[in-house]
């Protein structure tokens, strides 16, 4: 039986969600199989269930409109959630950033 590979994915949450999840700084999660935005968010919500509904809609699983996903200076927000993440994220060299729209005027 082949055990699917596990990648350690670094994630940077916006400050409000770090507070909600009671974490400080960057977090690192084990993601089984090919890391994608969907599988990373699945792992994130499994570890921090209070984040369910805060990044993607409970029902539609659509990204909340004021949030975007970045990695390696690329905007992944409009990619399919099942697109494999860049190698640098999978290797742990770069984090996946979840960013909120800038507030202010």
């Amino acid at each position, binding site marked *: 039986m082949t055990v699917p590979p596990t990648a350690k994915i670094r994630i940077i949450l916006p400050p*409000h969600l770090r507070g909600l999840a009671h974490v400080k700084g960057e977090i690192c999660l084990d993601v089984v199989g090919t890391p994608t935005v969907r599988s990373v968010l699945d792992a994130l919500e499994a570890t921090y*269930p209070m984040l369910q509904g*805060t990044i993607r809609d409970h029902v539609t699983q659509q990204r909340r409109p*004021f949030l975007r996903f970045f990695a390696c200076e690329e905007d992944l927000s409009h990619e399919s959630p099942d697109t494999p993440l860049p190698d640098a994220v999978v290797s742990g060299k770069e984090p996946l950033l979840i960013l909120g729209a800038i507030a202010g005027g």
Partner: protein
Amino acid sequence: MSKVRVLVGTRKGAFILTADGKREKWTVSGPHFAGWEIYHMKGSPAIPNRIYASQTSGWFGQIIQRSDDGGKTWIQPGTPPGEPTTGPGGMPKGESNKFVYDTSAETGKPLTTHQWYDGTQHPWEFKRVWHIEPSLAEPDVVYAGVEDAGIFRSKDGGKSWQELSGLRGHGTGPNWQPGAGGMCLHTIIHDPSNPKRMVIAISAAGAFRTDDAGKTWKPINKGLHSQYIPNPTAEVGHCVHHIAMNGTRPNVLFMQKHWDVMRSDDAGDNWKEVSGNLPTDFGFVIDIHAHEPETVYVIPIKSDGEHYVPEGKLRVYRSRAGGNEWEPLTKGLPQKDCYVNVLRDAMAVDSLDKCGVYFGTTGGQVYCSANAGNSWKAIVRDLPAVLSVEVQTLR
């Protein structure tokens, strides 16, 4: 020794203000949930140290918080940190921030549409919880009024929520429309003499009542007259801003409508205007003295285009006659250059012998009168804009 606990929701966090029964020296705790909008907090009448809070954000959506120690510590009831999200059988565990409209044929009508600003039909979309109303007797039962307008109930202390879909499925839904603040269900009132009766209000649909614990609802808007809608006396479509009840006389309701202060003596079946000599009958808050059910408080706001107090003077108006005859209460309140608003859930009364009255402003002040409105003092002056004020009387 009696004391009071004032629960203040603001644009950037929650604050808890406590004092003994004299209400002179205050302790301020907060901000709790710093940076988040706290639309409403309310304590359980059955277990006063249990407090529910609606924490919300345009970025991250809705969170429900619960404290079981009077606001010292908080949890998100359905999702303790680190626990798996499914139970042993693989079924999802409670998710306290999950508000999903009921579209099942068994319990309600399929998700319908409501009227949008331009008159077209628009699907219901959950945005936030405006108001939380715990059961009078059961600490694990709590109701939530939400935008887009609907009412949800939790029977497990806020862990999971189910819509009482008979309201949204009532049939008039396609005629409901959002006000400038959104289409929100902002008022939920339990009748202490009849556990099956609740009154709710929606901007802009009007008031509704259930007499069977939320299964079915009927509009109770007869007597309301709203010139800003095509049919001023329509069954629904009125922009009700808030309703108040004194629990000792549950059939008497007072309403601050968009314009007009109204009164019903038959649990909302019929309304009559009691604006009387108010300088303007536009406003948001309305409340009733804890021990004098004919004593009513409002804060007139200049107009729907100018959301601040008239003439730069912050004045609470009190009627001791159940409406029509109003007197301004100004002692301790700014009487020049004041241009704040007082939002619909931002007034409350305590039940101490000398009834205390509280309100919060969009300028961040929370005022208290420990003598039923005769004089006022600011408990705090510089909070973020206040969205809601509730008070618990602790004996």
